[in-house]
């Protein structure tokens, strides 16, 4: 996949090269997107944005990393960008509601409508809870935890995608688990 000829074809904008790239990566990129954003439509929109970004930025790809790593990095950044924007919109809507403007505010504080077809109906409530708890984590912890536990990436892949050292990834993961435990504990204490 990091074949220089293939990269050159991508750089020249060859349609067949992009068709091949999509064949190899559409499912993987979509899986990463839906791991961060539990809504099929939103995840597909972002995955589409990822491939368009690859098309726009392939000229900047130096080839020092694997193309897969580069694509996953774009996918992760696009997802975080989407979450940041949605969270900012929620905050803005909340402020508007405080000042009395009539902007409908979702009942949930979550950034997107929860529509994950891979989740069994009986687990829906728990899934929403865990996704909300993940959303409360600091960004670096959210990235590492999501890539490892939802997208199923190995620590080595996460090291390549995030550019952090293995020990750093492990320590971030440890803190993420600890914080999740704490948030869920608070959630269930208030719930009962």
């Amino acid at each position, binding site marked *: 996949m990091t074949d220089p000829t293939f990269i050159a074809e991508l750089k020249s*904008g060859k349609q067949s090269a992009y068709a091949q790239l999509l064949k190899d990566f*559409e499912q993987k990129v979509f899986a990463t997107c839906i791991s961060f954003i539990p809504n099929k439509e939103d995840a597909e929109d972002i995955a589409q944005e990822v491939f*368009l970004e690859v*098309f726009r930025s392939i000229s900047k790809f130096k080839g020092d990393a694997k193309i897969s790593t580069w694509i996953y990095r774009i996918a992760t950044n696009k997802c975080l960008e989407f979450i940041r924007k949605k969270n900012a919109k929620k905050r803005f809507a909340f402020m508007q509601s405080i000042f009395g403007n009539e902007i409908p505010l979702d009942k949930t504080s979550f950034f997107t409508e929860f529509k994950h077809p891979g989740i069994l109906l009986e687990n829906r409530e728990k899934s929403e*809870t865990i996704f909300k*708890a993940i959303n409360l984590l600091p960004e670096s912890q959210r990235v590492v935890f999501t890539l490892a536990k939802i997208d199923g990436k190995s620590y080595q892949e996460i090291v390549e995608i995030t550019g952090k050292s293995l020990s750093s990834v492990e320590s971030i993961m440890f803190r993420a688990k600890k914080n999740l435990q704490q948030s*869920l*504990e608070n959630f269930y204490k208030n719930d009962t």
Partner: protein
Amino acid sequence: MRKEYNIQDKIDDTLNVLETMKEVKVSTDFSAKVLDSIAYEKNTQEKPTFWLTPQLQLAAMIVVLLVNAIVIYHTLNTNSVENNVSGIEQFAKDYNIYSESTNILN
């Protein structure tokens, strides 16, 4: 104690949900849509026109600087000619008490 145990059970159950998530397949028309978008972007991408080349931009900048230099040079020259007019004549001109004739008997 029992309550805390229940809470920990709930937390474990919630965390375990992540293990039960099934793979979601991307829509079948996804790649076609992306390829269309790429083709559209490729066609609408503005091709750099000839005047955007760095050489021509440099040449344009030199022309602008030259024109500026010429205008400044001309302005300074005109000023120096005007400065030759005596101060009194200029004063008279400014207050409309200037006459073409210099003879006071006229």
